[in-house]
């Protein structure tokens, strides 16, 4: 990857970079919003709530993301008529929607499992104290349990976001021009196989460790009460 090539393909790689970041952030945000209710369902005593979320989490954690992507992107074509009647086909025919849809469900399953563990390990004394103060139900969750769970879950959740960012490279297989997609397109034009892949690999490496650095800072912030003691 010399300067000449960088000048020529830099703008396209930058576009690809934003697609990668866009897909990842959308999926992470929607996935997080869905993950909390799924985790709570999984922890519920009611079988009708517990089992669907158990099966959902088991399915999305037990199958490769590539299969999930193909199932949504190509598989939706099998139900074209039904989806058209529901007015959903216009969404499922687009690769971008399918990519975000799949990655959202995938990260939702992993995040729900991380949150389930975290919610379970919130110490009982804290919850009792909340109850003693007269909090219950949603208020107790919002003020006491979820903030504590977030603190416990954060390191694992940070890893999940990084994992998802890397997994988003798979969307290039369903024709999207993310960082990997752009790299493959450039290679098909220039045949500069290893130069481009190594350059893109370095970009991913940089994104990974920048994210890791940011998450570490947030972790330190969340753990600041412990630091003051030691």
């Amino acid at each position, binding site marked *: 990857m010399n300067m000449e090539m960088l000048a020529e393909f830099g703008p396209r790689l930058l576009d690809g970079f934003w697609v990668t970041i866009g897909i990842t952030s959308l999926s992470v945000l929607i996935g997080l919003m869905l993950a909390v209710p799924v985790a709570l369902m999984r922890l519920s005593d009611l079988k009708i709530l517990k089992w669907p979320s158990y099966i959902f989490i*088991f*399915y999305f*954690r*037990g*199958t*490769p*993301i*590539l*299969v*999930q992507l*193909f*199932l949504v992107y*190509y*598989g*939706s*074509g*099998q*139900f074209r008529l039904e989806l058209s009647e529901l007015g959903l086909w216009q969404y499922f025919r687009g690769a971008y929607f399918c990519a975000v849809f799949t990655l959202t469900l995938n990260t939702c399953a992993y995040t729900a499992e991380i949150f389930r563990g975290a919610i379970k390990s919130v110490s009982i004394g804290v919850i009792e104290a909340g109850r003693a103060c007269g909090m219950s139900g949603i208020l107790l969750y919002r003020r006491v349990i979820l903030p504590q769970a977030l603190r416990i879950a954060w390191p694992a959740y940070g890893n999940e976001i990084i994992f998802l960012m*890397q*997994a988003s*490279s*798979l969307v*290039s*297989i369903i024709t999207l021009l993310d960082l*990997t997609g752009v*790299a*493959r397109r450039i*290679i098909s034009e220039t*045949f500069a*196989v*290893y130069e481009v*892949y*190594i350059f*893109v*690999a370095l970009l*991913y*490496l940089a994104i*990974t*460790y920048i994210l890791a650095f940011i998450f570490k800072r947030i972790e330190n912030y969340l753990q600041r009460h412990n630091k003051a003691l030691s």
Partner: protein
Amino acid sequence: MFELGGYTPIIIAAMKNTLLVGLAAMILAIVFGLLGAWAKVASQAWVRGLANTYTTVVRGVPELILLLLFYYGFPQLVQDFAESMGYEVLIDIDPFLAGTITIGFIYGAFCTEVFRGAFASIPTGQAEAANALGMSNFLMFRRILLPQAMYFALPGLGNVWMVLIKATALISIIQLDEIMRMAKIAANATREPFTAYFLASLLFLGITAVSMVGQHFLEKRVAKAGQH
């Protein structure tokens, strides 16, 4: 349930290749992991640096990029190099080999961390006692350190296996006839992509479920052996 114009048994049979690549890659990953864990505590700084670079780079780059780099980039690099030396060579990597090596190399980095932790959890007294008994370094490694490290490493290795077997789906893009590729062929031929990929996903789910039971059973057995 899955008719798929007779493609169902073909997709199921392709599980063999998925498992073969998975197992071969896992063995390679364990070898890379042991080497990496050894290198991380080596006395030479450059060996440690190499091991740290290995785990840092591999864990920071998507598997897809590494697979494409190895399968398409590596032959090109060798060819370009040979050309500059005045030779003409054509390298064609076997997909099975490329897949196994790439996946093994990637998950070797994860195994390195698992083994590093496992060796670190063995009390130093063990090595000292082995030394006192006059064991050579290799004998000590084989008889004292490795068996105990395996005990500590088992849960971590089980987790690596679960992620690794799912990563083998990627090899379909370099044309190896495993579950994913056969599902794709069936999807195109029958025009029932959902059925084909859903079957593929259930096969992976089956492998994961069996692995989970196996891991649980193995850990229980090893825990039992650990109690004297």
